[in-house]
């Protein structure tokens, strides 16, 4: 059984293994980055560090939410993600094999919570190499190894 952080974007339930989540935070003030792509939501400060913000809904081609929550990943510190509709942390199993049908690199499994399908995603596989390069250029930081 995995502990999964469940959130909702555009009525679709997504799940992230909490091992990949460093912390969640309220979105404070942000700074705009000029000439940045649409999926970058500006720069935000968190505990004396500033992070470029990735609009998860833009990466997944979904509708923008009203309330936004800042998610800091565990595995890398060159960016933070903006998610919404956090439901909570739940323990349930996900099926890796059935998720392979969709052939999405970031989709790691499919689970069911309260009769609803939860798509488990891998944060480190959400961004393409090109996107990562753009972010690295912006921050000058590299992926942790």
């Amino acid at each position: 059984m995995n502990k999964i952080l469940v959130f909702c974007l555009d009525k679709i339930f997504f799940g992230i293994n909490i091992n990949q989540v460093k912390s969640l935070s309220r979105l404070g003030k942000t700074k705009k980055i000029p000439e940045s792509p649409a999926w970058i939501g500006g720069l935000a400060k968190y505990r004396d560090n500033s992070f470029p913000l990735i609009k998860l809904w833009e990466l997944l081609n979904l509708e923008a939410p009203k309330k936004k929550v800042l998610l800091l990943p565990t595995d890398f510190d060159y960016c933070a993600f903006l998610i919404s509709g956090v439901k909570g942390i739940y323990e349930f199993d996900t099926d890796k094999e059935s998720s392979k049908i969709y052939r999405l690199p970031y989709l790691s499994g499919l689970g069911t919570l309260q009769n609803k399908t939860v798509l488990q995603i891998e944060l480190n596989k959400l961004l393409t190499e090109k996107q990562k390069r753009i972010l690295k250029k912006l921050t000058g930081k590299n992926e942790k190894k």
Partner: protein
Amino acid sequence: MKLSNKFALIISLVSIATGTPLMLSCVRWIISLGDYTKMLTSLAVLSLILTGFLYFYQETRLRKAISGERKDIVYDIPLVSGLHAAINFSVFILLFSLIINPLFEITSIKNIFKIGVCLIPIGLIQLSLIYHLGFTLLSPYYRTLEDTQFTGLNITQKVLLLGIPALIFSVFTGYISTKSWLGLFYLVFPSLIILILIKTIKEPIDAIQERIQKILNDPFSSLKKTIIVSGDEIALINDLISIFLGKTISIISEIKETADKVRTQGEAILSGIRRLSSSSKQINNSVQEILENKAESDSMVNSVQKNDEELSSLSSEIESQIKTLVATSKKSIELANSGEEKSEEGVNKINTFVQKIEEGSKSLEELSSAFEEIKEFNSLMEQISDDTNLLALNASIEATRKEGEESKGFSVIADEIRKLSNDSASYLEKTKDNIKRMSEAVKSIVESTEKSISIFEDSKSIIQKTAEELKEISESIGLSTSMADQISGILKEGFDSISEIKKAAKKLSSLNEQQVEAALALSKETEAQVASMEDTEIRAQTLISIIDKIKENTNIHIE
């Protein structure tokens, strides 16, 4: 003695008187008798028989002609009489020759030839004599007849009829008397002289006849002088005709001048007639208008009379209604005055009420602003709740990372925080609902208050308007009361005027009738005048055309 008797007697006597000596000389030549007594006795008897026969025959014919029994024989009488005489004497010569022949023998062929030779001249002489005499005698009678037609012989035929027998007889008697052809000279000479004389008479007569004929055919072309060389009365007749023609020319020129004058007069008359005709038509139109107006005025008079009766019945009703109106008006004025006062009171009350409502409204507005503040506070609380939730989540995440007792501690904290967050969220939701409802209630109160204020304002204005209208009504009623009094007075005057109008209408009616009679008489006269004018116009036109013709003719021929 009747005309027929006279005519028959004259012809009989003349034929006997001329025929007998001729016959006697012829018979002597035929049979060469010396016994004059026997011959004269038998001649006298035969002559009497012949005269009687001629007389009765002619008398019968003439009587029938004069009485109109046989109109066809009127013009044949002279010729038939002549032929009768000729045939009688021809037959008589034959009989006489036989009577005086003692042996009653058939004479020789030579004698029969002689008898034949005698018969022709004697018959012709008798025919011409009796014909001329008969025509001369009957001419006065012929002139009295209508459609007189002289169907007798012309002058040449007459001359030949007289001349040829005379010539034959001259030749015959000259030869018989002298028994020599030399004797013919003494007989032919006078005959030639007679012929020349006849010719000198005939030519001027023919010329005059021709001239008169020309005048008759075309009177104006033959007015020039014609000279006839003759020393007798015929030349005098020609001169007289010339004088007559000269006078005729002068009369014609006078006629021409007069015709010009008459023409101008005729044209003037014509134009006058046309003007008169148009005036007459206008008069007729006017008469028609008068007649139409008469009908209209008659109907008006009738309507006036009818309206008069209706008006008299209406007048009493109007008077009673005016009285009622005055009484009602007074009551209405009183009511209007009291209404005005009450309206003022109502307005004052509304003003106080509105003032109070406005005060309440202000308090509500203050309450509404307090709610707004609470809403802001709520959003802050919501944020805190969210943060708390996030804190709980972070604690849970941290608990999974830690191990052992540390993990348990974090998870307890996380649970507590989550509970707190959930509770605060639920309380917040409830508070939000309550505030929302209260806010909506306050909003609706404020809206209804505003509506009430506007309604009160409307009511106030309506009451004020009503008060003003009541005032106006009161004034109007006052005015209408005075108007009613005035109307009453005017009605009385009106009725007096109507009675006068009625009288006037009667007068108008009688006047109209007189006018119509006069107009009709005028119309008739005008129509008659128009008819006579039309007749006169036609006559004037005819006169002008006649004058033009006369002028044309006179212009052509009088130079």
